[in-house]
């Protein structure tokens, strides 16, 4: 599906700005600079997308409830002072926001471009993993970055992105206890609710662009049976609905903070590794299996200076480069 018609966002914004009154079709038409029949068509489209708009052409329109859509018109005003406020692209439905962002980055999309979708039909994880991306219950967000760093210095962004999501959630609700699983899965009570996939296009010494893709389960009320023991959402974990707009804005703000740190501060890596170590319960002394390089099992022994996980095995200390790390005994690892 194409990018969201920007006029949809303007109609919603206009109705939201006059939330207590009925706004005439003529007023909307003149404010946006379109005909009244076009206004009717846009309102119908918004209704199909689940936006609760009352009224009809003869009476005018009113917003019955504030829609929790990740529209640029809602997000941009909350992102002043960050690199993410100027180029927000919204889609009602797309294959994968990472795919959109990588394509756009390779054809010159500026740093700070944000790609958001209400629904993904081909949300991706590592390898052939899929990310369930049902309509308007999660945040599916990819950003374009262009750090002036050698590729080897960019790896730490993968860990920093996890810290950014954690900070965003605690900004919105400090009661939620989020655990980080190396390199950047986010868990609540041992169930995953957020995954991050970073893609980079680089020469040996220079990064052309990096796309950080973040999927967060926000308001899912249920999961398919095969995921129930593994996945959760913020709603399931806290018992109440979250504003995706507020969380998405908090996320982009904390991501902006972490990213600036990485590109501007030569000591950023130390700080990121230290904070990651403090916030991950499985980084030390936990028995894990790793599906990398033939697979192996051992006890976690912290991070090396580059941020790679160290695992003590029968054959000595091994460095995990990329594999999925599974906790052998998730319940015994708690406090």
């Amino acid at each position, binding site marked *: 599906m194409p990018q969201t018609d920007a006029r949809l966002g303007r109609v919603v914004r206009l109705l939201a700005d006059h939330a207590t009154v009925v706004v005439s079709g003529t007023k909307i038409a003149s404010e946006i600079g379109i005909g009244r029949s076009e206004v009717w068509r846009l309102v119908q489209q918004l209704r199909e997308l689940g936006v609760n708009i009352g009224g009809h052409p003869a009476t005018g329109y009113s917003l019955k409830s504030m829609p929790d859509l990740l529209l640029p018109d809602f997000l941009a005003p909350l992102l002043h002072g960050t690199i993410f406020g100027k180029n927000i692209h919204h889609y009602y439905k797309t294959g994968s926001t990472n795919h959109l962002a990588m394509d756009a980055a390779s054809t010159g999309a500026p740093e700070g471009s944000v790609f958001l979708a209400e629904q993904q039909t081909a949300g991706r994880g590592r390898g052939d993993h899929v990310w369930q991306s049902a309509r308007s219950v999660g945040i599916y967000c990819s950003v374009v970055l262009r750090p002036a760093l050698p590729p*080897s210095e960019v790896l730490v962004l993968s860990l920093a992105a996890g810290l950014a999501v954690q900070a965003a959630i605690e900004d919105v609700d400090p009661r939620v206890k989020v655990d980080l699983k190396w390199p950047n899965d986010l868990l609540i009570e041992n169930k995953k609710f957020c995954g991050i996939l*970073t893609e980079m296009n680089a020469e*040996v010494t220079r990064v052309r662009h990096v796309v950080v893709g973040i999927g967060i389960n926000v308001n899912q009320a249920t999961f398919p049976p095969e995921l129930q023991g593994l996945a959760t959402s913020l709603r399931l974990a806290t018992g109440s609905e979250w504003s995706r707009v507020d969380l998405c804005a908090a996320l982009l703000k904390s991501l902006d903070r972490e990213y600036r740190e990485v590109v501007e501060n030569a000591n950023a890596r130390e700080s990121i590794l230290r904070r990651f170590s403090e916030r991950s319960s499985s980084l030390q002394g936990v028995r894990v299996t790793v599906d990398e390089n033939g697979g192996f099992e051992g006890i976690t022994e912290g991070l090396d200076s580059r941020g790679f996980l160290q695992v003590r095995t029968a054959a000595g200390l091994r460095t995990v480069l990329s594999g999925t790390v599974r906790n052998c005994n998730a319940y015994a690892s708690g406090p």
Partner: protein
Amino acid sequence: MNQKELKELIEFLIEKDIAEFELERGDVKVRIKRAGEHMVAVAAPHFAVHPAPPATPSTGAAPVPGTQAAVKETAPPVEEGLHSVRSPIVGTFYESPSPGSPPFVKAGDLVEAGQVLCIVEAMKLMNEIESDMAGEIVKKLVANGQPIEYGQELFVIRRK
């Protein structure tokens, strides 16, 4: 000149942005040429060095005090027009976009500049490695799923 001295020399040349350097000292002759973003170090008689971060010094053998014959010997002959694609990061090598799908390229394929050759993954960061020239894939040097070091050669390409 030992490995450490050579490494320091290369670092000095990078720091001062010196593109080409030649030294003859006793038995050892060293020629270093930095071509654009790649640096090629050719050293006689017995060691070859590629750029490596301080954390993973390259492991070429130290020079053996040479005979007269060894001193005259230059670097192994490299076929004209051959070029190697190296990894910009430490990670795991993947030949295809996802498990079970066909590889991006195989030996004998003709590739364009900018075409994706493989993915190197580290910490769930997927790095698409592109060909930096048009040509023919002569050889794939690493196996799917294999861990690789920074600067390791991944493919040999014959320039078109």
